């Protein structure tokens, strides 16, 4: 264990290193220099005066937000002697499993490539470049022949892999019984139980006002809603990331949500960010990647068929095509258990100088990937801002939903949390479903992998994602999944097949998320 003193100084050193040379750093320097012209800055107390100036002009707040952002995203450093893999994933068997999963995906991608004789990447001819530039705002009108492409993998393939995960150091010779875990996930990770969750999610308690419950038509707005909106406006005026994160735990008012999320994710859409996005756009125009076709296919199969997201089809291409080419995303691999796939320039296989990451951002999209972006289109309309918000959401949260790791917000832990909650608090239901061959995780897995996007009504989904941001954790997805099963328990007890169970849980679009969560956590007898 690292002792708190040196742990803190390590963290500080890391943050300083990351912020040094960033655009915020140069802006602060510029501001400090500019302030020298101001009369209140005196030579005798130069350092103090500049510090005061930065405080009153709001620049200190910006720095605070940046530091807070770093703390949220990067895990605390482990022992100084630990190798870098440990920041990615401390458990060796998990790393191994992720590695073989990645090999499988890459093999699938390569074989598709060879079958269709399409290169992984190629430069676009000039004519095609011009055409794409003209069509940039309406790429959805394109109808390329995508019949030969298939998604590289679907969530259920991933579930099969997770089901077969085993810790080689853990010997479980006992027969499955009520005292053991009856679910699909058989690795001994530590997950929280309801008393711990109650503590963690204390702001969702019965005595505390929530958007999604206490803003309903029957409740007069004076009770909670008006004050909550007022506080939200104040938080935005102060531009305080940490306060915003605390605030959204009770939900965001619709009109303030876009700004609040941007504040929490520390996205300010500076000119250099817009420039960066334009650069990515020109990369898309110039080079054609195989993954582009995968993205097209995914959007056409999922978001375009959704009753509400079909409208945003064009935005999805504009975001996802750029996303594939964004090498800054590679940074997240330092704390993700995944490793970006490598490819070699033609003819130079194995020669490291000619190795490139493929796709450039290291993330191979799977079936349903575009659904991570679709709900954000409700909030952000300017492409570069939409893009940055999505990228930040991905490197903070979404990447954990399709990589094998022991992190408490990783998909493995979420699955185990879901199954444990269900088995502990609804044992009869769990046993019944298991007996009829309808393991609950088989149904809820797809909800969690997509963070419920496309399954819940949009306004409910956004209320759920408010809490993901507020608590900086995805555990709420597992809690909601269990709460949904609890809600429909009576119907589920009567089904006799997996298909019937699926049918009972096929339509979640009428569910109200916050009451379900509140009842499950705070009003169920444990």
């Amino acid at each position: 264990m690292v002792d708190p003193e040196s742990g803190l100084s390590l963290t500080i050193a890391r943050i300083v290193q990351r912020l040094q040379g960033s655009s915020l750093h140069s802006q602060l320097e510029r501001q400090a220099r500019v302030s020298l012209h101001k009369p209140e800055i005196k030579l005798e107390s130069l350092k103090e005066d500049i510090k005061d100036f930065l405080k009153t002009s709001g620049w200190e707040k910006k720095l605070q937000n940046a530091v807070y952002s770093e703390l949220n995203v990067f895990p605390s450093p482990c022992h100084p002697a630990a190798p870098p893999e440990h920041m990615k994933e401390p458990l060796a068997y998990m790393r191994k499993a992720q590695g073989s999963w990645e090999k499988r995906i890459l093999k699938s991608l390569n074989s598709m490539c060879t079958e269709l004789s399409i290169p992984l990447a190629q430069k676009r001819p000039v004519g095609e470049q011009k055409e794409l530039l003209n069509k940039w705002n309406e790429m959805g009108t394109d109808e390329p022949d995508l019949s030969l492409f298939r998604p590289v993998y679907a969530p259920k393939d991933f579930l099969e892999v997770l089901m077969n995960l085993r810790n080689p150091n853990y010997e479980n010779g006992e027969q499955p019984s009520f005292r053991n875990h009856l679910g699909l996930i058989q690795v001994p990770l530590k997950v929280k139980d309801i008393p711990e969750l109650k503590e963690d999610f204390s702001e969702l308690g019965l005595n505390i006002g929530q958007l999604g419950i206490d803003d309903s038509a029957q409740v007069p707005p004076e009770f909670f809603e008006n004050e909550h909106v007022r506080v939200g406006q104040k938080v935005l005026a102060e531009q305080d990331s940490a306060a915003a994160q605390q605030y959204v735990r009770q939900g965001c008012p619709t009109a303030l949500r876009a700004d609040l999320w941007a504040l929490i994710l520390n996205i300010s859409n500076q000119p250099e960010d817009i420039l960066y996005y334009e650069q990515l756009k020109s990369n898309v125009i110039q080079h054609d990647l195989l993954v582009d076709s995968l993205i097209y296919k995914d959007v056409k199969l999922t978001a375009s068929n959704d009753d509400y997201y079909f409208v945003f089809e064009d935005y999805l291409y504009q975001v996802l095509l750029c996303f594939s080419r964004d090498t800054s995303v590679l940074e997240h691999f330092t704390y993700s258990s995944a490793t970006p796939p490598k490819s070699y320039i033609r003819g130079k296989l194995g020669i490291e100088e000619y190795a490139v990451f493929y796709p450039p951002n290291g993330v191979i999209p799977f079936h349903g990937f575009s659904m991570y972006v679709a709900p954000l289109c409700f909030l952000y309309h300017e492409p570069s801002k939409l893009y940055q918000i999505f990228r930040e959401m991905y490197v903070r949260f979404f990447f954990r939903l399709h990589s094998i790791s022991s992190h408490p917000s990783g998909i493995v832990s979420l699955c185990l949390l879901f199954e444990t909650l269900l088995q502990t608090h609804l044992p009869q239901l769990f046993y019944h479903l298991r007996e009829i061959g309808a393991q609950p995780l088989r149904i809820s897995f797809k909800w969690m992998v997509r963070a419920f996007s496309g399954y819940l009504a949009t306004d409910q989904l956004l209320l759920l994602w408010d809490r993901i941001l507020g608590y900086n954790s995805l555990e709420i997805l597992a809690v909601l999944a269990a709460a949904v099963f609890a809600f429909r328990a009576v119907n589920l007890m009567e089904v006799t097949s997996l298909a019937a169970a699926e049918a009972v849980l096929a339509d979640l679009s009428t569910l109200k998320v916050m009451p379900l969560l509140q009842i499950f956590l705070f009003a169920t007898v444990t």
Partner: protein
Amino acid sequence: MGTARPAHRSPWGRRAPPPVAMGTAQAGSAMARRQRGLPGASRRSEERWDFCWGEAAWLRERLGRAALEQHVRVCHFRNHYELTRKNYLVKNLKRLRKQLEREAGKLEAAKCDFFPKTFEMPLEYHLFVEEFRKNPGITWIMKPVGRSQGKGIFLFRKLKDVIDWKKDGLHTDDQKDETQVEIYVAQRYIENPYLIGGRKFDLRVYVLVTSYIPLKAWLYRDGFARFSNTRFTLNSIDDHYIHLTNVAVQRTAPGYDPEKGCKWMIQQLRQYLTAKHGAESVEVLFADMDNIFIKSLQSVQKVIISDKHCFELYGYDILIDQDLKPWLLEVNASPSLTASSQEDYELKCHLLKDTLHIVDMEGRLTGKEKRVGGFDLLWNDGPVSREGNLDTLLKENFMANTHLGCYNDRKKQLKQLFRSLSAQQKV
């Protein structure tokens, strides 16, 4: 069932009312019949029906023939075309505008400026040419007054296109009523519609009028936004599919996927706009829409043949422009009740159910209700405020009783309403 009965008390006293006999004169009423779970329709020729949901033309003829018994209800006003035919509507609105300008000044009159500049053709051809010449380069849309579903509509920018069309002579099409020159309107095309995802959309909103004198109108909370299947551009005016958002036209567009559907519920739209523009701007937008409904009904109030037996469910088509100003495209007296999806089906079923609740053949309501199911009372011989009292009407904190695009918990509300009504009856 021949004796006179007061309008709002149950004609059958405390006994359960005998089933209402339904007359139907059109396919759309099949749903209405099912709603009530009542015995099927009697034959049209034998007048043994109390309620008729039927085709406007048939009803018009019937209403003109002989008086109906007092309790009978029918779903159209005799001359609803004053509101629904584009050339009559523009005439009525112009008259209202002049009246308001005389009585209340220019500012009040400007509240009628929600109808794009329209000229009846061929009657007002010369006035149109004058206006056309004043605004060179803008786009105009030519619409036949009597047809629906987007038939016969075209866009133009050059006078030459109209001259050619006029030269073509009589436009006789097989219309049921008229064999003379078909009347068109030339209307200024709204070139800056509000776009979502690059697509144009219009709104379908439902307004139920139970009486014109005095004017009593209800606004339904649900409705939908119909999206064009293709991205909006002014470059290809001939592309019907872009400009006309009628689902009927979209159905035939290439690439149209019926499974996809191109509708959003108004609640979604309201959420989207609130997230983008903030709550206040959206409140203003919806208040402006209330204004459209009220003013359009007021403009025909004195012209419509008032008849206690009649009620009418209108489908308003509204277009929002980029400045968040709503425009009235047209009013339909027979809005489509066929469903394009499960959600749509439920909306229309609930709409019909609540319409029948308000028409209140069973005589259950007191007449003082401000909300029945998904309908909120929009106008009751005067504006209706959200709070009960009349004195809040004049204060600045007057909040209209309308909830378009808001949460519709109609089932719960109906349960409470009928429970309290039956409790009142027992007393």
